[in-house]
């Protein structure tokens, strides 16, 4: 276990070495929030409420969704598929650790870095620029932070699955791009899920993506309160467990299929 914790630490320190890059990121995420904010305000016009969101709630939702993305986003899919394609995964497989778990730990190290040096300062700037309303209930804060952690887990699991698929399709560049688009759209980052047409939002209720952005965002903006928080947290835990199945299966199948294409 100690070795796994070291993977978190090392990735965190590596990210810290490149921290200057993230200042531009904060700027650009703020710009993203700004543009979305003005687009939504133009849509609201004189309207009071859209899909159950008041204008202020929408602002907070947009801000917190982008900043949550600043935390949970990582490139595990690309890292894994690079390992597979250049053959270095063969070495990693014979080392005395679980490859997928190591990747998750590295992702967590990156996540902790992104949380402290990207999400928190970014959120502070977003709050200065836009009328973001912070939750007042303690339960909302605790619920949100716990859910944020599950957002990270579920998003990373989806990344791991996409990455490992390189074993079966050799070149999974297209899949990785597709995954990124699907996650951004169906997680509720681009449009909150309650604003989708009914048939689509009811389909999305049966997919894991809502658990990444929409559910934590709903808790943060106070649309989901009290006991409801346990329910949406339950949805996240459910998806976390379900997504373990394909990962275990892929990891197992990958060992049977491993053939190194070069190197």
């Amino acid at each position: 276990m100690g070795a796994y914790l070291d993977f978190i630490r090392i990735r965190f320190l590596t990210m810290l070495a490149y921290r200057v890059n993230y200042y531009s990121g904060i700027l650009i995420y703020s710009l993203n929030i700004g543009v979305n904010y003005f687009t939504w305000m133009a849509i609201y016009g004189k309207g009071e409420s859209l899909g159950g969101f008041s204008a202020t709630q929408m602002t907070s939702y947009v801000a917190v969704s982008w900043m949550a993305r600043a935390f949970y986003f990582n490139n595990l899919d690309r890292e894994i598929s690079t390992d597979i394609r250049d053959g270095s995964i063969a070495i990693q497989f014979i080392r005395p650790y679980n490859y997928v778990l190591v990747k998750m730990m590295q992702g967590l190290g990156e996540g902790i870095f992104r949380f402290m040096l990207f999400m928190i300062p970014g959120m502070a700037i977003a709050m200065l620029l836009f009328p973001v309303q912070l939750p007042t209930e303690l339960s909302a804060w605790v619920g949100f932070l716990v859910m944020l952690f599950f957002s990270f887990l579920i998003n990373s699991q989806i990344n791991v699955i996409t990455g490992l698929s390189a074993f079966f399709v050799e070149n999974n560049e297209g899949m990785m791009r597709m995954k990124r688009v699907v996650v951004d759209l169906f997680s509720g980052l681009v449009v909150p899920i309650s604003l989708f047409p009914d048939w689509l939002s009811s389909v999305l209720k049966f997919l894991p993506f809502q658990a990444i952005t929409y559910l934590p965002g709903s808790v943060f903006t106070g649309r989901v309160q009290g006991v409801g928080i346990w329910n949406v947290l339950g949805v996240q835990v459910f998806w976390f467990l379900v997504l373990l199945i394909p990962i275990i299966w892929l990891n197992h199948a990958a060992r049977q299929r491993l053939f190194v294409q070069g190197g």
Partner: protein
Amino acid sequence: MYYFGLINEYLKNYIKSRLTYRADFWVEVISDLLFQATNFIFILVIFMHTDSLGGWNQNEVVFVYGFFMVPFGIFSCFVNMWGFSERYITKGEMDRVLTRPAHNLFQILLENIDPPSLFGSLIGLVIMAISGANLGLPFEWWTIPALIVLSLSAVAIYTGIYTTLTSLSFYSDAPTGILPLMYNIQTYGRYPVTIYNRAIQVLLTWVIPFAFVGVYPAALFLHRDEMKGMALLTPVVGAVFLTIGLLAWNYGVKRYKGAGS
């Protein structure tokens, strides 16, 4: 002539390497279109909840979107510098490029050519035709020539911006994560920029002029007279930003010292 020969050779190479991963070709086409679909869905969802966005109706916003797809497809096909820093600087492939006679940027662009992106341009033209017909836009004698000139200017703007940003990797050893982030922003130039506050309008017009690849040029076809001046300015902005990009690039290459290994 020499450069045309090179284009031919690189295309042949592209096709050969592409045929190795046949299924992936279609996956890539679909994922490109899906990326566009995200934004398209955003527009459709918006107009389920409102009739106008800053005084523009659904067909007009969709038309702007269709126009936006045309230059973006051409740009993505010929100017694909995603992962440049990692591949060329960190892994040292830049050294190989520099030992050859053709211009280094030209070689890099050709090595990364991506024809599936052109499907996006085609879809964009179809979207323009459909929403244009819905709006009853007249087909003038200048429509086609203007479409060509404005699209090429928009491609020049994209190329200028992304060449400038990519050339930053010559100055800094660290991979700059700025390119993927920029991809998120470029789509905002499609919306009527007048809905944004002044600072963002100025930013999208003069600093990172993504408004010139979407809403301004499209306004010309939509006969939106308030933006006509800006539309006609597009080629100028294209020339300016392309020049900045090339200068930044050439200066960066001069400074480039190689990164070991």
